[in-house]
């Protein structure tokens, strides 16, 4: 029974893909939309039942759908591993996925490629479910590539926009670099364990040498960094905002980009063996968290601010993994899915009500015009900024506290500054968008309206989750969530530690102070003295320009990697065309030259000889005129004999023998 349910989870969206993909043009958009979100809803129900079952039994189990590859020593099944980690991911993916699908029906209403959009979205769900459910690396990889492909298709959804097509391409190619690392890790795993099944690999993981474990872990990390948009492969995510907003919410905030975090946690047994790799994970995460947050400070596109915020929050999750706080990483993954989906979708609602405007400089004063949207957006802001008791506070605080308690002070500092910046840019976004004078075009302002119910209801559910979602992890480190994940996310060899309550409360107050500080600064700069922000920007133009241009990383990559590659290709292409043509022309020329030479020889040697012979012939003919019947035949015969004589002489001369 459970096995059937497990298999059904990815099958529902798959059926929807086939229906909408093959027959979608035959029925109305309305029905296509219902099929799409209905399928995801059914998956969610199945996931809930699987989760309930897991709650009661608590035992992990595997479900094999069929044998996919077998040959020689390699044996890979299309199989699923159901354990607490999987069930949490399943709930997040199908739950948030369902809400976003419902929202999309309203958001994409009337779009030309409505059915196509939902086909891709469902295909994405299938891939994402394979990714989190797979019981071996190869199924994980299939899902991994599948979500990348769907992300590509969906970013490029507005195909008439050149920038969208470019962004899609960029996302895919950057991800492919990460994937190369991931695939390498898979090969290394197979070379060392002769299997790709998680359970078998993790059973034998103890026999790995530190060096091998580090190599595997670093390769995995390359994959994770690509998918989860961490330094140095983060550049694709902000550009990916070219896609429709629900796509940004589902793929580029709540689910796909967290795949890297899931993968690291899933493989924590290998990472635990490789302290060096783990440290790298932590520092990549910490630096990304701060770096992306700093870019987010000055961006003016509502979705881009959220995109950098996503990169930054993913950095927190990586940081958590790097310090062995795997449960905290998954906890933050979950709460982030709630509030970031909420923020993106409500940003989508804002964009929707403004007729497609995304520049916050052309917004302002919206809180009275679209109060519902404003309220849910505010909930999301409070949650991400870390204001208690909303969800983001609990998960972020846990990561920071863990870093401090385990003496990762450098990472703690990065996280703390990052948290301050996060609170600042999110409230800046809120103030600029919803408060102050309206800076909208008059005809846009005239049409501002609250979004339809089908879009608002998912927002309310997500707002509710953003408020209460953090309580599953209360009290910190000992909540229900921690107990549930204890078996799958406890670092190998972790010692139980006792932390004084006063330290915990102290860290918590610091975190709250940081969040309030960020809020306060934003309030001062954007609500109390709106001129102050511009003054600040003009006072430090260098820093401002650097941040606005995202540290010129894109330009740098272009100049250092993309352009040289292209140029090399062009040069080689030119060489190819030149060399081959020269070669052929050269051979042609050679024939010309030799032809000239042959003509000359004919004229001066052969004909001379022939003339002599002909003359002789003439003499003979003169004497034996009667025998002269057909001159032409004679000539022909003579030419043939002459040719053979000539060749004979030539050969003799060449071989050095005497002529006779």
């Amino acid at each position, binding site marked *: 029974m459970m096995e059937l349910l497990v298999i059904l989870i990815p099958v529902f969206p798959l059926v929807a893909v086939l229906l909408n993909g093959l027959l979608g043009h035959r029925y109305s958009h309305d029905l296509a939309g219902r099929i799409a979100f209905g399928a995801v809803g059914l998956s969610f129900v199945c996931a809930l039942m699987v989760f309930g079952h897991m709650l009661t039994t608590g035992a992990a189990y595997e479900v094999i759908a069929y044998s996919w590859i077998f040959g020689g020593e390699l044996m890979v099944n299309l199989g699923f591993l159901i354990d607490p980690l999987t069930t949490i991911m399943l709930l997040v993916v199908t739950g948030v996925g369902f809400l976003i699908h419902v929202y999309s029906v309203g958001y994409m209403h009337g779009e030309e490629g409505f059915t196509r959009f939902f086909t891709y979205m469902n295909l994405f769900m299938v891939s994402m479910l394979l990714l989190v459910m797979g019981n071996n690396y190869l199924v994980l990889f299939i899902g991994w590539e599948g979500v990348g492909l769907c992300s590509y298709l969906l970013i490029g959804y507005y195909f008439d926009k050149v920038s969208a097509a470019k962004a899609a391409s960029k996302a895919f190619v950057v991800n492919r670099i990460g994937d190369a690392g991931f695939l390498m890790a898979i090969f290394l795993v197979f070379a060392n364990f002769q299997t790709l099944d998680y359970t078998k690999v993790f059973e034998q993981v103890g026999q790995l040498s530190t060096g091998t474990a580090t190599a595997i872990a670093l390769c995995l990390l390359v994959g994770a960094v690509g998918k989860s948009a961490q330094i140095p492969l983060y550049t694709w995510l902000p550009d990916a905002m070219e896609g429709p907003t629900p796509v940004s919410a589902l793929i580029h905030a709540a689910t796909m980009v967290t795949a890297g975090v899931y993968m690291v946690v899933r493989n924590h047994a290998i990472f635990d063996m490789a302290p060096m790799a783990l440290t790298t994970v932590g520092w990549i995460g910490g630096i990304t968290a701060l770096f992306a947050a700093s870019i987010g400070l000055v961006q003016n596109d509502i979705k881009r601010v959220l995109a950098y915020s996503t990169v930054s929050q993913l950095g927190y999750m990586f940081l958590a993994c790097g310090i062995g706080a795997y449960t905290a990483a998954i906890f933050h993954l979950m709460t982030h899915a709630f509030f970031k989906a909420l923020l993106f979708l409500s940003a989508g609602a804002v964009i929707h009500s403004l007729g497609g405007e995304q520049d916050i400089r052309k917004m302002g004063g919206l809180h009275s015009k679209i109060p519902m949207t404003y309220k849910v957006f505010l909930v999301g802001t409070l949650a991400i900024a870390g204001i208690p008791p909303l969800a983001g506070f609990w998960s972020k605080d846990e990561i920071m506290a863990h870093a401090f308690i385990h003496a990762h002070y450098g990472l703690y500092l990065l996280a703390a500054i990052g948290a301050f910046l996060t609170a600042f840019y999110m409230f800046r976004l809120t103030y600029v968008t919803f408060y102050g004078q309206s800076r909208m075009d008059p005809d846009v302002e005239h049409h501002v309206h609250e979004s339809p119910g089908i879009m608002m209801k998912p927002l309310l559910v997500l707002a509710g989750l953003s408020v209460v979602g953090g309580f599953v992890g209360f009290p910190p480190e000992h909540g229900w969530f921690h107990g549930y994940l204890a078996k799958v996310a406890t670092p190998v060899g972790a010692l139980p530690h006792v932390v004084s309550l006063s330290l915990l409360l102290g860290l918590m107050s610091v975190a709250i102070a940081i969040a309030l500080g960020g809020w306060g600064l934003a309030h001062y700069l954007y609500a109390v003295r709106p001129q102050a922000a511009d003054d600040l920007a003009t006072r430090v133009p260098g820093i401002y320009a650097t941040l606005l241009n995202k540290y010129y990383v894109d330009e740098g990559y272009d100049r250092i990697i993309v352009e040289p590659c292209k140029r090399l*290709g062009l040069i080689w292409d030119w060489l190819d065309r030149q060399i081959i043509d020269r070669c*052929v022309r050269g051979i042609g020329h050679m024939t010309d030259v030799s032809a000239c030479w042959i003509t000359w020889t004919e004229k001066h040697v052969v004909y001379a000889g022939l003339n002599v012979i002909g003359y002789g012939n003439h003499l003979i003919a003169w004497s034996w005129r009667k025998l002269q019947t057909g001159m032409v035949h004679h000539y022909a015969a003579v030419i043939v004999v002459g040719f053979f004589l000539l060749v004979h002489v030539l050969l003799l001369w060449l071989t050095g023998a005497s002529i006779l």
Partner: protein
Amino acid sequence: MTLPLADLLTILPELLIVGAACLLLVLDPVMPPAKKSLLAWMSLGTLVLCFFISASSMNDRVFAFSDLVVVDPYASFWKLLLYLVSALTILLSMTYLKEERIDLAEYYGFILLSLVGMMVMVSAADLLTIYLGIELMSISLYIMVGFKRFEGKSIEASAKYFILGAFSSGILLYGISLLYGIGGSTRLSEISAVVTSRGGDDPLVLIALMLVIVGFGFKVAAVPFHMWTPDVYHGAPTSVTAFMAVASKAASFGALLRVLLEGFGGVKPNWNGIIFAMCLVTLGFGNLVAIVQTNIKRMLAYSSIAHAGYALIGLVVAGQAGAESAVASQGVSSIMLYLAIYSFMTVGAFAIVAIVRRSGVEGEELEDFTGLAKRHKGAAFLMMVFMVSLAGIPPTAGFIGKFYLFMAAVNAGLTWLAVIGLIFAAVSAFYYLRVVMVMYMREPSASQESETRLALTPATAIVLACAIAGVVFLGLYPAPLVSVTQSAVLPF
């Protein structure tokens, strides 16, 4: 000297196909033009018959004509692949030739003769016999490349191919003659004995080895002997390009593997480094130059060069000195798997190129594909699957092929080679996806919108169906093909 019946029976498929080719050439003038497609169907019938003959003797290992020819599982595997590719080419050509108004029956005759050449190449146990096969294949191809005889591009391609092909054949033949000089025989088994006893440091052996590698390098289009490929692929009729890119490459790899592993198996360290270097430059060159191409046939030409580079990874694995025989045969079987999968996706891609035509202008420029998804959903979708597969993205077959190759490399301890291969596979996504981008994410121009004709006939539909089925099925369920390749490797 009499020809024993047993020997003749061993090469029955070759004889049948030669017979069919001759019959075709004889029947061509007397057939009424309307019934000419019968000749194509006749060739197809012959291929099907031969397919069954070869498949039924798949597990045999028979020598014939005093060891000039060997029919072993390895040869049979390549032959089956070659039948399939030839059949798909013939089906594709039936429509394409009519579109191009070069519908001549001798074309099919040349395909069959070229096929016989390839079959001889993969099942020859003697260098001269291999050479014979190469020449038979190449001469037929020279003519087929120039089949669009009223088009300068085609003639030029043919001339270039001929000149350079003859040149490379000469080099190969020179190598063979040197080997004959030192060994007194052209049999691979005897050459192997002589080469092993003289050792790899013998200058004559080394020179002969170089010459042979250069000769085959031309045929498989490995850098730096690839230069004919883009021009010839570009100029040749598209169906011929598909045939060359797939069948001739597969056959050349089949022969190259046998020559190097059986003939020069004793001096692996002497050639493995060369193959390694060739593999690296082929990967880098093919992939980087493909990025800047704007013509889809040229792009596919460079892509085929790059794929030769991937396949060479398997040869490097097989040629690892001191590698266990299990690892070495994994290298060989992964090449066989890779080229089989490569055949499906490449034939599919070329088939789409062949049917996307705009009023007499071939759909060859990348621009011709602009907005194809709007105009021909199905064709665009198939092309996308082929491109995705060529880029090696799961769950398509292209991924399985690369997976086994790189896996073999890692198992043989060639981790860095696998890393480089993976990076270039990542780079390749760029140019393959550009085709997808152009098809899906650009609006067709007004003139393209109005010309909506696809050269789609039942015959081309069969080709596309076979190609897509291969790409999808082998991606989802590669096990049968994998086990066939693993049981058909060269004996080590």
